């Protein structure tokens, strides 16, 4: 049942993504409404999918890579919807929904059977670790999407050739501020995720660092974001460089997520 809901959500995310991408070149009230309706509908189905899984398994649906990616996609839509309501800037969807769609597609390609939990999951710290990391990543996905928008808009202003998107994208000030705020939310969550991960690792295996690729890449990710935050807060970094670093940081998040868990076939903690 939960898988049917998930596929329903996936289809609606495809519709939402396409509508939002079209919105970049065409002004259209109906188009924006379609994008929002599809996204809200997808989010509702996705929520049902997570709840169904929660009830069926009697535990949070965070036990394997499919569940983790699905939860991440869900959290990212949630963050986007909150912003879309708060700022009435639906065009952000064109840069956030593709990330949602890609992770949801990646999740769809994975085995979706009930997760056989590794003994590690008997520890509460693991649940906290996974939840913090995924919520933090959702906020950081937003800094990446907003960073892309910033770079596009800045490119147009600098080159003085204003394309169709110039009229649709928000102001640089708004994008930079939003990226910064999302970082202020995402970075502490990511940090909390890493700390709880370390605690669990210490408890389960007696050592903090297992030197597995996921741990190393997540450290790299953390250092990038820590550097970005430090540069923003003390060196007054903003604009293009901050946007570039935010995109780099999220690439590291994705590498940690997909690269290690899916491609190398050596899932971290999940088995």
């Amino acid at each position, binding site marked *: 049942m939960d898988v049917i809901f998930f596929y329903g959500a996936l289809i609606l995310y495809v519709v939402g993504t396409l509508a939002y991408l079209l919105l970049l070149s065409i002004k259209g*009230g109906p188009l924006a409404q379609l994008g929002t309706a599809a996204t809200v509908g997808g989010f509702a189905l996705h929520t049902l999918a997570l709840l169904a899984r929660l009830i069926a398994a009697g535990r949070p649906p965070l036990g394997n890579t499919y569940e983790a990616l699905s939860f991440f996609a869900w959290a990212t839509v949630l963050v986007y919807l909150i912003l879309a309501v708060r700022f009435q800037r639906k065009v952000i969807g064109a840069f956030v929904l593709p990330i949602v769609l890609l992770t949801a597609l990646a999740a769809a390609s994975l085995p979706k059977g009930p997760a056989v939990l590794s003994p590690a999951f008997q520890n509460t710290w693991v649940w906290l670790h996974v939840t913090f990391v995924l919520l933090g990543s959702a906020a950081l996905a937003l800094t990446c999407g907003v960073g892309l928008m910033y770079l596009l808009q800045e490119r147009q*202003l600098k080159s003085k050739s204003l394309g169709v998107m110039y*009229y649709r994208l928000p*102001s*640089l000030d708004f994008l930079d501020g939003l990226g910064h705020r999302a970082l202020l939310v995402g970075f502490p969550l990511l940090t909390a995720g890493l700390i709880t991960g370390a605690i669990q690792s210490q408890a389960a295996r007696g050592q903090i660092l297992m030197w597995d690729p996921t741990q190393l890449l997540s450290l790299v990710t953390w250092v990038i974001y820590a550097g970005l935050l430090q540069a923003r807060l003390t060196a007054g970094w903003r604009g293009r460089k901050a946007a570039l670093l935010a995109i780099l940081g999220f690439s590291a998040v994705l590498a940690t997520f997909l690269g290690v868990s899916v491609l190398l076939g050596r899932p971290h903690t999940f088995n």
Partner: protein
Amino acid sequence: MVILTVGLNHTTAPVEIRERLHLSGTALPPFFERLVQEGGVNERLVLSTCNRVEVYAVTENPEHAQVTIPRLLAEGTRTPLALFADRLYWHRHDAAVRHAFRVAASLDSLVLGESQILSQVKAAYEVARAQGVTGPILNTLMTRSLGVAKKVRTETGIGEAAVSIPSAAIGLAKTIFGELSGRTVLILGAGEMAEVAVRHLRGEGVQAVVVAHRHFDRAVEMAAQLEGRAVRFDQIHQELLQADIVLSSTAAPHHIVHRADVEELIRLRRNRPLFLIDIAVPRDIDPAVNEIDNVYLYDIDDLEGVVAGHRLAREREAEQAELLIDREVVSFLRWLKSLEVVPTLVMLRRHLEEIREAELAKALSRLPGLTSAQQDVVRTLAHGIINKVLHHPTTELKRQSVNRDGLLYVSALRRLFGLQDDD
């Protein structure tokens, strides 16, 4: 019943003619009156703006109106007819409807997509309605025009891009800073363009205006005009630290702001964005300044390029708007057709004849013994009843249709007998 538009606009007539034909205020009531008396017009409305003078009329006799309206325009404005007769354009029926929609939606404006025309159309309609010279057709045409114009505005981006240099500069500033309220603008030098731009910026909520000029007394004078603060020219580096927008138009023969200065400045500003507008020729600011992060430099050619791009963008959006208007014209014409008297009467007669034939066939099949002469009597009876029943409504409807309320009878009739168009 034909909708007719007669008029001239900025493409057909120069301002010398347009201003002479301007028709408003106390000149309107007698003009409206003569349109009825001499022009045989049922409904009428005048749209007179600085770019156009147009008469919208609903009439039974368009040929007559077409001759009379120009003559009345000439007499009403005391302008020789020969001066403008060949400048007039005519639109009838669907072309007139399309024209009304295009005018209200600003597709026929000098500046494509400008928003003023909408309120001008609204005002013209209100004036005409207050004087009781419009009727159901023009009322609906005008209400629809205003609706179409709003739809065009919300569903296309026709009014979005700024098409004058000061407003384009403000658009750019908003793209950089978001809200402009509370921002500071620094004016280097003097000039009319700078003053215009400052007035625009004030309208957007820009808080502080600082004026610097080589001649301090000139700075003081300008600052007083713009309600700003004057500073000496050798203090501009201090002011550049604070300003968000810099508008430069000095008469200096060489650059007065160099790349190295701005690099240092941006470091001290901790990367706070800076928008430099250089409208001086020769330029005041080294173009290489644009390469610095968080600094945006536009010179006069750049701004003109932006405006040209915005015009193209509006033209693209106008194509969308034309499609929207096509659909609205079709929908209006369908409504209009439903108000025509003759087709309604034809439909009513056909409706009754169908009933007659059906009932006759039924009756005759129950009376097999009738001779053909007797059958003819029955047929004539049925025929006669229909004709007698239809006689009075037909003449009355035709009589009423000339009046303003005639259309109400048509729609009531259609409602009561359930008459619907085949198409």
